[in-house]
């Protein structure tokens, strides 16, 4: 299960992580190693096995549809890298 440089670049784009050109081959080799390890799973036929959903088979709990949190916008914006008038600032998305 060898991963080549192109796959690293594609996956890095999907994950929105910049990988420098010189470190792409290292990541390709690391990923290949992990996927080789994962390939050991193919030793077992799992065609009739249900994938695990939850260790103790718990189901999603629902709560009453009522407001139980106070607005903490100021507290959350205080730790943001860039805000203005209550908005988070990012580079322009629309030209």
């Amino acid at each position, binding site marked *: 299960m060898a991963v080549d440089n192109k796959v*690293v670049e594609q996956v890095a784009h999907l994950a929105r992580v910049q990988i420098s050109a010189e470190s792409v081959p290292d990541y390709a080799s690391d990923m290949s190693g992990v996927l080789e*390890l994962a390939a050991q799973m193919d030793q077992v036929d799992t065609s009739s*096995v249900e994938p*695990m959903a939850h260790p103790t088979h718990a189901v999603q709990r629902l709560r009453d549809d009522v407001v139980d949190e106070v607005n903490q916008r100021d507290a959350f914006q205080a*730790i943001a890298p*860039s805000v203005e008038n209550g908005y988070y600032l990012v580079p322009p998305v629309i030209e």
Partner: protein
Amino acid sequence: MHKLTLAAMQRSLESGEFSSVELCQHLIERTKQHNETLNAFVSITEEQALSEAKAADEKRAAGDTLGSLHGLPIAHKDIFCTDGVRTSCGSKMLENFVPPYNATVVEKLKSAGAISLGKTNMDEFAMGSSNENSFFGVVRNPWDTERVPGGSSGGSAAAVAGRLVPACTGTDTGGSIRQPAAFCGITGIKPTYGRVSRYGMIAFASSLDQGGPLAATAEDCALLLNEMAGFDPRDSTSIDRANDDYMATLHQPVKGMKIGLPKQYFEAGLDDSIAALLQQAIKELEKLGAEFVDIELKNQHLAVPAYYIVAPAECSSNLARFDGVRYGHRCEDPKDLEDLYKRSRAEGFGREVKRRILVGTYALSAGYYDAFYVKAQKIRSLISQDFSQAFADVDFILGPTTPSPAFKIGEKTSDPVAMYLNDIYTIPANLAGLPGISVPCGDVGGLPVGLQLVGNYFDEARLLNVAHQYQTVTDWHTRIPG
């Protein structure tokens, strides 16, 4: 004073032998003195700790009790959000992140009267088995400072082993409480998945992550877990189930308990000297009346391969939240939104985190999801079924915590897969969601070794009971690095 266990400190505070201020001051001085070498703490919250200790002493003098941990010093792994105190998760991404709220675990321990002396170092985002992946530098093992303390809760384990603090919180996704506890000669328990709230505990792999205590003894772990455990409506996978009193059952006899020895745990790959120490421990437990039987856990060898798909997959999804927009690191002068995301994440995350994000993204991408992620979740079912079958016949499963004692700093950093195999004995319990405890059971050339007991779901009380009984007839947990 620092050599006392948490339980002994509790008695001394109650009897007035020393005050909480004296105790905290002493430990903070000790931490400042030794942290330069050990690097176990990333923040020391001296001012806050001493003012809380003073308040605790005043309350005590007035005849009030804050709770079962009144005035007792602890420290939190830097993965637990602490209101107003920087929470870095060992990452440059969160180097300056000051959460505006407390994790449930932090809140619970605080309201029980515990005093946090600071935050402990860890592998970045809890990804690692050696604490070499921290943005704040490697943590050193107090038993041999050329060696790793284990990870990812390496700072917590080193802080307890070095007697900087009697107990710490930790988290365990694939062994991150038990493995460092073993490497540092202390006790650590990973509770059943859902037992301890994950609210405010920075997420790595949500179906595996579980918080728990690290301390010198099983009794101290019980003291802490009594306050940490419990249902939390703010964690959607928290289990709504009445709490056990882990202290109340510590003294029950071990006689008649049946312990399984999985043949797969004693095969090739295990250090001979560790195998010999386990045999000694088995004899001790037999003397206490435990009965041993051989069992099979036939899919154990697939646990590491399945884990290194499930954990990276969940990591890639969880860490998508670090986008350089709402909090955390942001790159300089982004040219557009994509550049902002890509460079902020490239600069903020370390190599192992990026490696896992890439593997996880790959395993979840179109065309590979069934072959990797679904396959791994099926293997998880098989591993879990193996455990269920075993627990139909035995009360606990005993084995090693780690294949070898603590290794040298730098020894395994060049080969990620060799590093991953460190968790070969701890990962199965995470995949199945079962509780596990590591207890010191000897040393090899001066380096501590841990034995692991895995219990059935919600059997933390009996795990702590057996571990405590073992510690009444052995003294490995009382040894302190020179």
